[in-house]
């Protein structure tokens, strides 16, 4: 009995910081519909600011006020970010704001490195709470007990705020229907600012509260992000009690997983998440999404038309010039162009899914990395030639998408996005733990192109043919009846269904098609680099593609590859600078604020104005 109780207590203590960060994210999403990727950065800032304050403020009082002040400071930073950046992009397509939050992540990473230096900081101990008490003979750290007591207090305070105050009423109303709240004369701007600041303050509080159990380091922004996403989704986006329940569930399951299945630590939370979402597609206490138009808010889109002759001739000429690159470009230009082309195809495949089918996937790397691993495994274990591997890479990725799509498409909107994320993570942990078969984190190396394609120029031409072909195929699909049906399903699913379209099957087909194209890009990547590692399946890779698609412009046909080309070339160039993350973050924010329709969308709008 003692050990079991002690383990439950450990789980409850772990749930503390997790709940605070997750409830903040949940609140922000509920009201502003922003999926705040930078939430982990606010958590990290809370830890660093709390640490600094604890060096100055003495004693017990100083310790606890430092935690509180850290929360307030991070809340203020959050308010600043909301007012300066996010306010300008609310009118943009939904989820576009996540690009802005991505820029914030990069900036915070470099600023934290500048201010606090590269070394990990050990969190100060809570005065008077060092050591353990024995409960049924088992040692339980005193600070754990403090956390177990504080968390429900914070949860209660939040609950009182939401149910008992005018601010809370407005927050709840906005979570239900924010247009109506606006129509009733509530100043939405300050409501949004207030909610965003509160959410960030909670993240900061969580970061400062965990200091006595660990410390502050520069990687903690990303390490907490996935668990927080899982908690928010399992609890139900926008539900505070759900977030509490889910953080306790995830933490306690985690503790028992550590004891009874030590190898399971990577996959367990995602298994729980998939299981809960299969059972309740909107999380434990979540409600069905009312406004389910992911990425499709704003003025109606112009119907797409096939390009006219001048454009076609122009594109053909540009392609010829590009294909001839090995004749006039340097050896490195050819290599860089190969990488860019591969990334463009990957981005274009996600862009198709987002733009045409209206399906936002947070786990598109599953198919990119899936295709890459399929090719690499075939070469490594079956001795397959490059040509066969390149053929089977998109097929395998397509098959994978067929399977994942079957489950994930049961949900919609953000829940669909989160399910794709969960599956991508599951695949990642499978590969990570695949031992000699997948090579684990040491990956599979020494997988180079066939002899005839070995020269960089030839491999470039092969990549060029396949990537440009793939992108043209995606474009063609948009112009085909399939594309029209997809857009109908995207814009109005009930009406499309009433016209006899099988919405789910259409989306499933689009998901599979996009997955296969991403797999082709992944297959090419393996032969371009000669190796593959689990990095290609990571969340970061999915995010890269997502950012690029939004930067390029969702509501355009060429946003995917244009964004991909600009981003990949830009990163290659910027990493030469010392503070390249700061610079990249600022550039991203700049583009986001001046061009909320993305690069292509804004250019097109500009062109239309010029013509008029």
């Amino acid at each position, binding site marked *: 009995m003692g050990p079991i109780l002690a383990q439950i207590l*450990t789980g409850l203590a772990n749930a503390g910081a997790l709940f605070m960060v997750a409830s903040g994210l949940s609140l922000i999403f509920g009201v502003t519909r922003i999926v705040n990727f930078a939430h982990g950065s606010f958590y990290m800032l809370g830890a660093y600011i709390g640490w600094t304050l604890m060096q100055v403020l003495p004693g017990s009082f100083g310790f606890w006020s430092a935690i509180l002040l850290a929360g307030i400071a991070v809340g203020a930073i959050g308010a600043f970010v909301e007012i300066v950046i996010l306010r300008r992009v609310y009118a943009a397509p939904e989820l576009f704001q996540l690009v802005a939050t991505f820029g914030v992540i990069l900036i915070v990473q470099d600023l934290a*490195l500048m201010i606090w230096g590269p070394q990990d900081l*050990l969190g100060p101990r809570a005065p008077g709470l060092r050591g353990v008490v024995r409960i049924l003979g088992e040692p339980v750290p005193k600070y754990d007990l403090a956390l177990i007591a504080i968390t429900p207090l914070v949860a209660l305070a939040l609950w009182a705020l939401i149910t008992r105050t005018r601010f809370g009423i407005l927050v709840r109303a906005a979570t239900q229907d924010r247009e109506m709240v606006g129509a009733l004369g509530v100043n939405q701007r300050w409501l949004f600012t207030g909610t965003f600041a509160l959410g960030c303050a909670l993240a900061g509080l969580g970061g400062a509260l965990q200091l006595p*159990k660990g410390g502050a380091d520069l990687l903690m922004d990303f390490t907490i992000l996935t668990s927080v996403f899982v908690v928010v989704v399992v609890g139900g986006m926008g539900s505070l009690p759900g977030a509490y329940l889910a953080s306790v569930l995830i933490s306690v399951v985690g503790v028992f997983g*550590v*004891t009874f299945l030590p190898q399971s*630590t990577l996959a367990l939370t995602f298994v729980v998440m998939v299981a809960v979402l299969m059972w309740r597609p909107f999380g434990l206490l979540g409600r069905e999404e009312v406004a389910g138009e992911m990425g499709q808010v704003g003025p109606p889109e112009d119907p797409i038309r096939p390009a006219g002759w001048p454009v076609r001739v122009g594109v053909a000429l540009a392609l010829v010039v590009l294909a001839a690159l090995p004749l006039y470009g340097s050896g490195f230009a050819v290599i860089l162009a190969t990488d860019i082309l591969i990334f463009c195809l990957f981005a274009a495949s996600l862009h198709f899914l987002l733009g045409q089918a209206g399906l936002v996937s947070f786990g598109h790397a599953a198919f990119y990395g899936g295709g890459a691993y399929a090719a690499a495994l075939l070469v490594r274990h079956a001795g397959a030639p490059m040509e066969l591997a390149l053929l089977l890479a998109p097929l395998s990725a397509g098959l994978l998408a067929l399977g994942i799509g079957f489950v994930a498409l049961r949900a919609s909107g953000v829940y669909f996005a989160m399910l794709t994320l969960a599956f991508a993570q599951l695949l990642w942990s499978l590969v990570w733990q695949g031992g000699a078969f997948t090579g684990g984190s040491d*990956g599979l190396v020494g997988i180079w192109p066939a002899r005839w394609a070995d020269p960089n120029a030839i491999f470039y031409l092969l990549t060029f043919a396949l990537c440009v072909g793939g992108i043209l195929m995606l474009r063609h699909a948009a112009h085909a009846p399939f594309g029209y049906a997809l857009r109908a399903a995207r814009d109005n699913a009930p009406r499309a269904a009433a016209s006899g379209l099988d919405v789910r099957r259409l989306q499933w087909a689009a998901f599979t098609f996009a997955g296969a194209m991403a797999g082709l890009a992944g297959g090419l990547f393996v032969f371009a*680099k000669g190796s593959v590692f689990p990095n290609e399946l990571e969340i970061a890779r999915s995010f890269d593609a997502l950012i690029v698609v939004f930067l390029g412009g969702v509501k355009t046909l060429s946003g995917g590859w244009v964004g991909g080309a600009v981003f990949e070339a830009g990163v290659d160039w910027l990493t030469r600078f010392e503070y390249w993350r700061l610079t990249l973050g600022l550039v991203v924010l700049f583009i986001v604020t001046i061009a909320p329709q993305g690069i292509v969308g804004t250019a097109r709008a500009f062109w239309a104005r010029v013509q008029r």
Partner: protein
Amino acid sequence: MLRRTFAALTVSAISTIAAPLVAQDGEAIRIGEINHFKRMAAFAEPYRKGYEMAVEEVNAAGGIDGRPIEVIFRDDQGEPGEAIRIAEELMTREGTVMITGSILSNVGLAISSLADRQGWVYLASEPLADALVWSEGNPWTFRLRASTYMQAAMLAEEAAKTDAIRYATIAPNYAYGNDAVAAFKEVLTELKPEVEFVVEQWPQLFQIDAGAEVQALERAKPDAIYNVTFGPDLAKFVREGGDRGLFDGREVFGLLSGEPEYLEPLGPEAPEGWVVTGYPWYAFDDRPNAEFVSAYETRWDETPKNGSLVGYMTGLSVAAALREADSLEPDAIRAAFEGLSVTGPVGEVIYREIDNQATMGAFVGTTAVEDGQGVMVDWSYRDGADYLPDDETVSERRPSE
């Protein structure tokens, strides 16, 4: 064209231009260094400083036959794919004669695979993976730092001297952790067949649930614990374990736990009585080591880390190989590295012909807290050559040769 000129400008802006203190006529010999300067700043920065210091010393002494060495430092974001592209750029456009660098094993493996294909020399300075010189080893890749196997073997040798029979292990769940546990088990069971491993814990890298891990370890009632966690995971593990009394009356062996990179952040809460590998820069009174430490402190106004030593040795190794080589062609440099002898602060290091692994060793000692800071006491330097398997086993593990 404009783009290219601009890129070239920025490259020269961020890379260190060798400061020729001695009159030199020749054009600089360029070396490409690829590392995760941002993502792993705490480890890469000391490394870079040590490297730069070695290059400055070599250049001040006249460089390589009058030509200074110039190192171009590039950030790969910790992504193998990026590292490959940068390596291509360095070798084909920047005119570097060889590649050095990387901390993460996967990046090291990716570069090594490229080096093998293109016939470029790659000195993997910091990555620890055994695969780099063994299962995936190739003639073009050399590795400087004592490998996972070597450091685990040093600890296993110490473990065999104790009475502990029941062992528990805790290691991050990725290739390095797996290798480190496997090597420790292999060497320890060889030295002391009666030991048993009662529990193996595999927390996720940098996401350790320390409380739960400590409870799981305690449950197995081991005599001794072998720890491979590092960085923020180590801090959390030490805290929870210390609070909950996990380490009381138990032998603990900690791989890399004594390196300043990991020990210093723990401050007064550093574990006591652990047997660890590390770098006791504060305790040297022998000449070469102490001289390096004081030179480093003078040059950078900070104390050295383990990475500083590795970076310094990287610079010395590169210079030694270039001196030895008949020309700057990759094949000549590769031939020079085979069996190359480099003398640095820790003594002589030889790049073995059999597997391209350098014999650089590590310091093994016991942790203690002195003046509110974790330190290693009763330490000694172990030559890496003594902790490698016999030649026959090495040949088996290295199929490429």
